[in-house]
């Protein structure tokens, strides 16, 4: 207990350094902006802004990039409520009741409860993270290559299970991602693989340009085809502070959303999107007046908005303690940490305590900043929404181009980004989900190394994966997830992906 307290104090010392405070502020500000803007999600934003962090310390960089993710969760709700357009996927469900509340002239309380709920849930997640993180880190220290291998298999399987559309297609995407991770030098034998004598493939295919293509460029192409049409609610937003009755109505929704979101955030493959949908379903079940849902029930805003923030906090756990990203956003963050020369995993807490505790504590501060930042600035965000798309998309494209180039000062990364931009566009048309590809790409090398190390350990005996209890548990979970959709109709928790 005292040890944790010491760590938290240490975290505050790191996070309260002026530079880190400034980067935290930038992170949540950009995050909110990204959340407000439809067509640009946190995954693309983190990838785009990664090169801007090259000149700063890894701690400041992580604090800022993390801020973008949970900041986006706040921003997304604003557009859902006011315009009925979710700024990003985790706020889709907020449209159902949030927009109805706005139509009834209750936009103020809806925005207010979303912000307060997010703050409470975000803080809850960070506190839970403070306690669960070290615990999980200790367990993970006992993991050998077989456990890691099985854990990664589970992570990828859960993500394909939860992904939108056909699970078979999602599995193909995971396979393709895995294959892409093999491009470049094989770390064990030193042989070059799949490079076809192309100079720029020798170092492999980077996660970041692929993510920029899949989540940035392809999104712009899709929007060009459909031409987003936005009607902005013209009524004045007033009474941001929810009344006592609003509080009484939504308090338990916030509590339930926070707890549910946190656990769904931890599970590899889960995340904010799934959490928001699950919370909405639970609130509707728990309500005495389920018929009010969809007509402006405040619980339908409070629950999911709390859940997505809590999940965003929770999803940092597998990344920081196991080095396994729970969703595409975390996968890109993992890529970012590795570019900064860090290896997330159970040893991170010992090797880079300033990063571990600084980032966690910065989230307490960031959540407070978001609360202060969001409510008074809502008129500004509404103005941002009015920026016409013909100005917005060239800017997004320019950011992608500069971002990809500055990764390594080479045009090759731009070309990779464009290829995956076109591929991502086609994939969205043909209903292939990009999320499993990103996750498999970022985990690929670790997956292969742990597989080969396990087989060397056991002298070629595959039973090593099922004779070790933890590994066996992971694999059983994975197999169940693969069988369930074949036997029953797979329940679609979400038709949208994280990112």
């Amino acid at each position: 207990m005292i040890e944790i307290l010491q760590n938290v104090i240490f975290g505050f010392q790191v996070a309260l350094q002026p530079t880190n405070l400034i980067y935290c502020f930038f992170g949540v500000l950009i995050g909110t902006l990204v959340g407000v803007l439809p067509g640009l999600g946190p995954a693309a934003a983190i990838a785009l802004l990664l090169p801007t962090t090259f000149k700063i310390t890894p701690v400041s960089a992580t604090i800022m990039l993390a801020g973008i993710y949970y900041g986006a969760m706040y921003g997304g709700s604003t557009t859902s409520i006011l315009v009925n357009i979710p700024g990003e996927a985790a706020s889709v469900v907020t449209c159902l009741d949030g927009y109805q509340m706005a139509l009834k002239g209750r936009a103020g309380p809806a925005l207010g409860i979303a912000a307060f709920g997010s703050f409470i849930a975000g803080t809850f997640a960070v506190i839970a993270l403070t306690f669960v993180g070290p615990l999980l880190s200790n367990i993970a220290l006992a993991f050998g290559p077989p456990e890691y291998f099985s854990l990664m298999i589970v992570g990828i399987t859960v993500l394909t299970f939860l992904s939108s559309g056909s699970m078979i297609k999602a599995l193909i995407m995971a396979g393709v991602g895995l294959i892409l991770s093999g491009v470049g030098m094989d770390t064990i034998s030193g042989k070059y693989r799949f490079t076809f004598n192309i100079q720029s493939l020798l170092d492999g295919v980077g996660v970041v340009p692929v993510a920029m293509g899949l989540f940035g460029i392809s999104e712009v192409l899709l929007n060009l085809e459909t031409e987003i049409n936005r009607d902005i609610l013209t009524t004045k937003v007033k009474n941001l502070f929810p009344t006592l009755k609003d509080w009484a109505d939504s308090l338990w929704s916030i509590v339930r959303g926070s707890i549910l979101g946190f656990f769904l955030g931890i599970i590899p493959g889960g995340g904010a999107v799934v959490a928001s949908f699950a919370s909405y379903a639970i609130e509707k079940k728990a309500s005495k007046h389920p018929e009010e849902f969809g007509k402006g029930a405040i619980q339908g805003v409070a629950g999911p908005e709390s859940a997505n923030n809590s999940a965003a906090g929770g999803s940092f756990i597998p990344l920081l303690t196991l080095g396994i990203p729970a969703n595409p956003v975390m996968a890109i963050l993992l890529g970012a940490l590795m570019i900064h020369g860090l290896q997330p995993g159970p040893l991170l807490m010992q090797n880079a305590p300033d990063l571990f505790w600084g980032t966690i504590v910065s989230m307490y501060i960031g959540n407070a900043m978001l609360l202060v930042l969001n409510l008074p600035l809502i008129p500004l965000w509404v103005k941002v929404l009015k920026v016409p798309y013909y100005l917005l998309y060239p800017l997004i494209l320019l950011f992608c181009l500069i971002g990809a180039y500055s990764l390594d000062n080479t045009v090759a990364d731009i070309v990779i980004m464009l290829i995956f931009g076109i591929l991502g566009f086609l994939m969205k048309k043909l209903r292939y989900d990009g999320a499993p590809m990103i996750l498999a790409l970022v985990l690929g090398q670790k997956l292969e190394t742990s597989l080969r190390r396990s087989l060397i350990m056991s002298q070629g005996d595959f039973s090593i994966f099922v004779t070790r209890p933890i590994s066996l548990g992971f694999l059983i979970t994975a197999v169940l997830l693969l069988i369930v959709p074949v036997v029953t109709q797979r329940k679609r928790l979400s038709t949208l992906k994280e990112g």
Partner: protein
Amino acid sequence: MKDKADRASGLFWLTFSVFVSYQSYKLGLGTLHQPGPGFLFFWTGIVTAILSVTVIVISLRKRSSEETQQPTFGKKNVTKIVLVLISLLLYALFMEWLGFLIVTLLFFIFLLGVIEKKRWLFAILVSLIVTAISYLVFERALQSQLPQGLLDFLRF
């Protein structure tokens, strides 16, 4: 239409997977005691190939029922998308030769003036502002080392 698209995409991934498995086989699978560099990817390729065949088979089965599906590609705005893609490609091709400033300016003027058909004065003005600001932010403040290209002699 959707089924046709599924058949095409399934066929594409099938070809891709078979190719990967073949390449991996050439790399060497090693033995189970000492898995080689192609081991994992050979088997991933095989699994992906099987999954692709499944996609094709499913799409063949439901051919008759869902023929009325919406077309996958709308005719709308196809030219716009292609033009944007071409301009992105040209940006990449000429970036190092022309330098960041010139290529960004041209890129923006093209997008706003030609593709979006805004008034020329507006397009040029916005392009100048965007180019200047992005240069100051990325080159000056963040020191991104963007290519100078033709303007290398200026070095301001």
